[in-house]
């Protein structure tokens, strides 16, 4: 169950011709999930900044 299914790195990338589909799906998926985290983090930072400025001015 825990044996590597491929002989070498090239096989992992190529996956008998299916590598382009498999790796593109995972890259896009990871990118979108990662991007969502970044957007959420940035949004929290921005709103905290605004609240801090408001607190300081009042």
């Amino acid at each position, binding site marked *: *169950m*825990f*044996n*590597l*299914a*491929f002989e070498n790195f090239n096989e*992992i990338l190529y*996956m*008998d*011709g*299916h*590598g382009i*589909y*498999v790796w*593109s*799906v*995972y890259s*896009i*998926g990871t990118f*979108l*999930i990662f991007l*969502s*985290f970044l957007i*959420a*983090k940035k*949004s*929290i930072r921005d*709103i*905290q900044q*605004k*609240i*801090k400025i*408001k*607190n300081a001015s009042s």
Partner: protein
Amino acid sequence: MLMLGWTWGLLFAPQDAVQGNSYRIIFLHVPSVIFAELIYFFMAVCALMHLVWRVKLGAYLIKSAAPIGAMITFIGLLSGSIWGIPTWGTWWQWDARITSTLILFIMYLGILTLHGSFSNLEKADRLMSILVVIGVVNIPIIKKSVDWWSTLHQPASISVSGGSSIDPSMLYPLLISVIGLGFTLISLGILSSRSYIFIREKNKRWISENV
């Protein structure tokens, strides 16, 4: 955990006898489609909370979960499309499961657009909740679409009650990927709901005191 599931599935799980290595897309495709439906179900529960008990947090959670739901449904659709090229020889088919998932994606967009169209946010919250509750009728249809229509898409390989039709060497990484994506989405949900609560409650004293 998600990385463990993906690494196991991508590198260690054996090749499928029929689909070859392209089946490895399953470790992203299946979890994302499961969560596309689960997130909508969660939103429906929040919408009921908001409509019945007037809990503001219900609406905030819907508003934070809807973009995540849309994103994960898009990933599900896209991964299914790409998987379709080597498996069915076409990237899109007006097939039951694919079409109903596209409808789910449109529902997410509809909810977001509806909320964004009103400047009165309390009104937007209520209308959005009504739409979410009514839209939940589509979830069992999406779930059962492969059984009701003649379709290219295969029936579900794993189910809560009926066991599974796939080998344990593929099933375990799949289950780990499902749980891993679940945790990832929960943490994303916590982050975005935190940010949305800040935005909506920014003028309240408890927010000013805690920032």
